[in-house]
């Protein structure tokens, strides 16, 4: 399990232990990864986050067209694995969760503990802090070196 902010860790660990989910991804509504468990490649995580956030964003818009407030969760039940996608509001803005689970658990259990996770996250989330300048004086040189290494020119 990997989290960008430490306060996300304990509730997420609790969720994983109780729900027996295989993969969990927490992201902002813009698709930025906040926490993850079960992925092997960090860059694949980003693609999954972009797609998951996109699905939730589009179903929310569909709900809006139908004068609904939004869908609580979206569940896709496959033959081998199932997936739950859900958007929720936190003191840190709107987040999206993507959970993949197998036959060792059930959608009912995953949903049950997912709701618990959301309640816990909302309860323990510290308020948003303003971003300070993040990059040091070597920034210009290192940026150029990185861009050169990546783009080769």
């Amino acid at each position: 399990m990997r989290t960008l902010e430490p306060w996300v860790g304990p509730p997420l660990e609790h969720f994983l232990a109780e729900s027996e989910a295989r993969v969990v991804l927490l992201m902002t509504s813009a698709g930025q990864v906040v926490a993850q468990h079960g992925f092997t490649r960090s860059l694949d995580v980003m693609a999954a986050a972009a797609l998951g956030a996109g699905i939730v964003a589009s179903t929310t818009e569909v709900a809006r067209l139908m004068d609904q407030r939004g869908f609580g969760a979206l569940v896709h039940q496959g033959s081998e694995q199932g997936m739950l996608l859900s958007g929720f509001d936190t003191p840190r803005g709107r987040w999206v969760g993507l959970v993949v689970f197998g036959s060792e658990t059930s959608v009912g259990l995953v949903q049950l503990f997912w709701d618990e996770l959301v309640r816990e996250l909302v309860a323990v989330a510290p308020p948003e802090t303003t971003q300070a300048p993040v990059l040091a004086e070597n920034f210009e040189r290192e940026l150029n070196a990185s861009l050169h290494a990546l783009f080769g020119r």
Partner: protein
Amino acid sequence: MSLVNFTTREITCKIVYYGPGRSGKTTNLQYIFGRVPENRRGRMVSLATHGDRTLFFDFLPLDLGSISGFTTRFQLYTVPGQSYYNATRKLVLQGADGVVFVADSQARRFDDNLESLQNLQENLLEQGVDVRDLPVVLQYNKQDLPADLVLSSDALDEALNFRGVQSFGADALHGSGVFETLKGISESVLRRLAAGAPA
């Protein structure tokens, strides 16, 4: 909004390639995907129709490596260009840290470029973002086409580049100008972060 984490020292930025239909946004990403070393990029995800028109978005994550001690990642998105896909364009634009506007240099597409640029401004404004506050670079694609079909970069600058931002002539299919554009937007976005501006 870029995600900066001080604990794990990571920065993730979202760059959106915007522009009219068939201007070459997906082609830009495909070229980048093909040229960046495999260990520095993820899979390219394309949600397209059978006719290879972007339906929702294309997505390509890039790993820029370490900058000032921060692991820096970019997420490149394209939007569908056709005017009737505005709802999905708005979704993809949410939380963008920078925009590459890919214009089609063909003279007959001039109005489409203008319309798309206006649409970008409107969609950003709807999300409470003034386009003047957001890092944007322009790319004039298809400059390889015969001179009598295309407008020059100077002419396009005159017509589209109101803010005097960085602009690049390009031939995305063969790669000319693609990395220059990406480097341009990367610099703008990261400089803005370094300056401590509200991201």
